[in-house]
């Protein structure tokens, strides 16, 4: 890419845009001085409505902060956003929804965009943490392109509080180079943990999936808050503890280095690891487990709301979303984006599992997040 000058202040940008529209400068000159040329060249027609919208929204400021997951965005795409709009993206990375909620409850985060999972949306709305979306400011969002099953958790009391981003499942990954076997159920996962794979298995440091998938061992609901069922799950977790390699949601390093052989795993991590190390495969427990969708939300306290809308719209644009999907390895649930993905992603059974496997999966429930017994079980599990 050739070197273009850095972005210009938004005000100047608007003036230049005005001159361009009036015809006093040429398009090429306009793109050159505003630095938009770089972005345009790189993304070709990726952002058809950008110039118009940047104008419609006026100055969006020079900064936008997104709270999101590890390995979730290509930093280059944020660079492109900065080139296009002048707003630099700051990224805060988190390990769990609980952590984000805790910081939002405490306040003072300064976040403009928060990527949240389905089951947190009702809590965020209930606590007055996030705002309803003004869809007219997101021209790139097409509600009809996303399966309502994934999009609906974003609608609370008939109002759209969250815009779907990625969808996926929680299963487990296994390095078949280090273990000769083909477990297909959560029962096998926990049995292998306490037997042949002792010392080589990772469990998430996350109440929802660690406890949920232990519940599946007994065939209970992934979301159970029944005290008796939770007791069973706790017993299993504590029994498995001495056999675990680690309790962490950051399992990629250990899986890649070969220290761990099996780990609870999210779709995107599975795609990323499988791409580099083909012997790492992804398995959805046949009993079920979690299916989820992640959403863009805008906190009521966001200091840069205009930039937040601009960033979300920028990332929703199908070509950009496809670029991002190739980076993070999750399906977006957006048909327009699916069509742009390379064949090996579209055919991937990690991203698009067989229908009969999907039917057994459950969306996480908000109640798990606030249930005190689940929180205490995780603490006892970790300190055992």
């Amino acid at each position, binding site marked *: 890419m050739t070197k273009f000058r850095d972005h210009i202040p938004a005000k100047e940008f608007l003036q230049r845009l005005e001159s361009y529209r009036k015809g006093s400068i040429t398009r090429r000159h306009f793109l050159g001085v505003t630095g938009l040329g770089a972005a345009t060249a790189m993304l070709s027609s990726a952002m058809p409505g950008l110039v118009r919208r940047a104008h419609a929204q006026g100055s969006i400021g020079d900064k936008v*902060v997104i709270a999101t997951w*590890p*390995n979730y965005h290509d*930093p280059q795409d944020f*660079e492109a956003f900065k080139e296009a709009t002048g707003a*630099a993206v*700051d*990224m*805060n*990375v988190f*390990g769990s929804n609980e952590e984000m909620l805790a910081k939002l409850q*405490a*306040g*003072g*985060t*300064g*976040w403009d965009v928060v990527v949240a999972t389905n089951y947190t949306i009702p809590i965020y709305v209930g606590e007055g943490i996030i705002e309803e979306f003004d869809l007219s400011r997101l021209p790139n969002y097409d509600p009809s392109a996303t399966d309502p099953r994934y999009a609906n958790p974003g609608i609370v009391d008939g109002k759209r509080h969250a815009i779907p981003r990625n969808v996926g499942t929680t299963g487990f990954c296994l390095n078949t180079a280090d273990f000769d076997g083909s477990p297909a159920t959560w029962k096998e996962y926990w049995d292998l943990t306490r037997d042949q794979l002792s010392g080589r298995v990772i469990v998430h440091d996350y109440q929802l999936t660690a406890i949920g998938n232990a519940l599946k061992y007994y065939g209970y609901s992934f979301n159970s808050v029944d005290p008796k069922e939770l007791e069973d799950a706790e017993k299993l977790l504590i029994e498995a503890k001495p056999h675990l390699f680690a309790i962490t949601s*950051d399992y*990629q*390093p250990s899986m*890649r*280095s*070969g220290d761990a052989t099996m780990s609870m795993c999210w779709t995107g991590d599975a795609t990323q690891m499988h791409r580099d190390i083909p012997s790492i495969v992804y398995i959805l427990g046949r009993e079920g487990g979690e299916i989820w969708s992640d959403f863009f939300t805008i906190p009521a306290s966001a*200091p840069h709301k205009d930039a937040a809308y601009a960033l979300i719209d920028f990332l929703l644009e199908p070509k950009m979303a496809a670029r991002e999907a190739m980076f993070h390895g999750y399906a977006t649930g957006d048909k327009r984006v699916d069509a742009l993905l390379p064949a090996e992603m579209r055919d991937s059974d990690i991203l698009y599992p067989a229908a009969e496997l999907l039917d057994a999966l459950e969306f996480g429930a908000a109640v798990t997040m606030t249930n005190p017994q689940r929180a205490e079980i995780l603490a006892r599990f970790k300190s055992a």
Partner: protein
Amino acid sequence: MRIYAILVYLFLYIPIGIIALFSFNAGRHAAQFTGFSLQWYGTVLSNPFVIGALKTSVIVALSSAALATLSGTLAAVALQGVRGRMRAFYDALIYMAVMVPGIVIGIATLIALVTVFDVLNPMLSGLFGEGAPRLALGKGSLIAAHGLFTMALVTVIVRARLQGMDRALLEASSDLGAPPMRSFLQITLPQIAPAVLAGFLLSFTFSFDDFIIAFFVAGSETTLPIYVFSSIRRGVTPEINAIGTMVLVASLLTLVSAQVILRRRAR
């Protein structure tokens, strides 16, 4: 005895060596060395997130160390003349500031500041209307939270130095009719200077290295340790090794040049 020392130095330096060695790894993964390359240094230097985090860390560490050294030194000097209940009060507070674990400070500061901001912000916007300043977590809260511990540390260090100071000089100075301010500037200050400098360096190092307090009070700011922590989360790449090596080399260079300047002055 010497063999023992060599063993301890090996223990101290093998990990540092490994960090440095793997920063030159051509491969993406830290598990094995696949060839020599400088590419990770390029990656780091062209990564706006790293540069941004580094800037934040340097600004925060410099300001908190400067403020902590100034207030700590002033307090240590003033406390010399304070006795009785007042003295016990300050001693207890400074003792607490040194002792309360960073993690408690981080959590407590987060909750306390946010609660106070919630009260103050509406008042501010009531006073100044639309363009009112908004209090929020960020560099300011980082500087204040880091400086608490280091200010207490500076007070303790400078006080120890003041106690060891030759009081005869001060007395001689005032006997000769020098005003207290002049005695302070000409006699006390030069004597405590090494302690003040040591305090500043310690404060800078502490703030630059701190993760746990920043983790809670940084708001949307990202310091270098926070960046490194989230990168380790994302997976292990030699990028982290390159950052570590560069920070180490930079601090070594600072130290060596400081030594050289001090030696020249001494001559």
